[in-house]
């Protein structure tokens, strides 16, 4: 027979009828001969009855409402995260692709910006360039000066407007530029003071140039290429006095075409017409002879440098 202590441990389970067959038999045998354990079983039964009869408490009427108000608060917090990330299968790929796109765009802009800076930086400090030019050889000086003048002319051409008033201003500017070219060429020809050879761009032109540079790296690159091309050319300015400007301008243009001139540009106003073109140096003499048939010629500067292939020719047609 098992001791009372062991049996007492099994009594609560015996009460539940959850003992195995042997244990149950042992308990029953023990209970038949042990009043103490039998009493314990009765007490356990009463205890279970007392516990089982405990009344349920009811939740307060506000309970569900309070829980749900807290739940809605939590849902509100959650919805921010859900707005950003849910549904995951859609929003995560979109966010990843957007991030990659922005990263690529930033890298592209950054690299583009580097080229742009390379183009802009030399223009931002023109003064030291002038200093350097003083020590250059006369040919180099001519090229540099011509480069700058070409820039001026280009600016004038690019800013040409359809209105007459604008045309007048442009033509005046062209005249000024041509005058400047003449002065510069003359200065070069007689090898005067080096400082006089450097042309200082007018502030307005500088501003325009800056604006052009800011407008994009590609434009700056194209302009630089054009400037480099022009810098290797000599320049000739011709004044042609005629009876009818328009008709003569047409004839001169035909002549230029005939002599295979490149980059022909024409500006016509009431009092004058300005034609610019690149002409082969070897054809210059013939061209000049033909121009004399159209009107009275006055060559301000005639630089005949046989080493150069092309000459930048400016023809200003005026009334007699």
């Amino acid at each position, binding site marked *: 027979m098992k001791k009372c202590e062991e049996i007492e441990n099994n009594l*609560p389970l015996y009460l539940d009828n*959850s003992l195995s067959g042997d244990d149950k038999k042992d308990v029953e045998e023990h209970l038949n001969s042990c009043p103490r354990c039998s009493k314990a079983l009765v007490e*356990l039964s009463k*205890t*279970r009855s007392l516990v089982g009869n405990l009344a349920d*408490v009811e939740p307060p009427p506000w*309970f569900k409402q309070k*829980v749900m108000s807290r*739940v809605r608060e*939590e849902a509100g917090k959650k919805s921010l995260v859900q707005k950003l990330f849910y549904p995951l299968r859609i929003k995560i790929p979109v966010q990843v692709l957007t991030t990659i796109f922005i990263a690529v765009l930033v890298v592209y802009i950054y690299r583009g910006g580097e080229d742009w800076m390379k183009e802009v930086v030399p223009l931002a400090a023109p003064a030291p360039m002038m200093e350097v030019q003083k020590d250059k050889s006369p040919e180099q000086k001519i090229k540099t000066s011509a480069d700058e003048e070409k820039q001026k002319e280009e600016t004038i051409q690019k800013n040409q407007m359809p209105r007459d008033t604008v045309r007048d201003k442009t033509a005046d500017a062209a005249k000024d530029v041509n005058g400047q070219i003449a002065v510069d060429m003359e200065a070069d020809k007689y090898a005067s003071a080096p400082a006089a050879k450097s042309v200082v761009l007018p502030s307005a032109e500088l501003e325009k140039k800056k604006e052009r540079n800011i407008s994009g790296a590609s434009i700056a690159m194209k302009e630089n290429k054009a400037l480099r091309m022009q810098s290797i050319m000599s320049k000739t300015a011709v004044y042609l006095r005629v009876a009818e400007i328009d008709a003569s301008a047409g004839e001169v243009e035909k002549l230029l075409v005939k002599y295979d001139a490149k980059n022909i540009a024409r500006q016509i106003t009431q009092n004058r017409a300005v034609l610019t073109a690149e002409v082969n140096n070897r054809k210059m003499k013939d061209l000049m002879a033909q121009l004399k048939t159209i009107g009275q010629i006055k060559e301000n500067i005639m630089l005949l440098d046989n080493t150069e292939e092309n000459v930048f020719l400016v023809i200003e047609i005026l009334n007699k």
Partner: protein
Amino acid sequence: MLWVSNIIDGQKALYEDEDIKFVLACQKGDTEAFSVLVERHQKQMLNIAFRMTGDYDEACDIAQEAFISAYKSIRKFKGEAKFSTWLYRIVVNYSKNRLKQLRGKDRREGVSIDDSERTGTKEVMEPLINDSNPGAQMEKHEREAQVQKCITSLDDEHKEVLVLRDIQGFSYEEIGDILKIPDGTVKSRLSRARNALKDCLSKVIGDL
């Protein structure tokens, strides 16, 4: 008791399918579906917490926090166990944690957690006093308070098994699922819990 338990089990089985439906709705973001789950389980949640702590107000707070916690982590519920099992595990754990906090606080303040004043049975009793036989009702509630006091005095691991089995009527298997302990452990703990409660009641009430 077994008959009652079977009826409760039958109702629970009926609820289980319905629970899953509302749980899925909650997981898809339907907040209002959770109110159905609260409605269904609030009483049992509150009673588990109340029998564990013996304090009605504490039990209300615990059940409320357990529901909020369940809502927060409802996406983690994968249906491996019954939803009610998962929910009752939360309330049991919240109750045990709260009891630990209270014991720590009482230890610092030199108050016993078993003090009858601590239990909220008085507040629960008051509305029930208005009955045809106030004397009998008083006696009944006094007895219930004594029983609750003895339950509250048990170790946490004994208390939880006793509450789930003898008060809430869960099966050994369900208790094992709720507490994540094997059947054998449930039985041994229940056996010790019942003996300890019997001894306590014998001391408090006298001859049972």
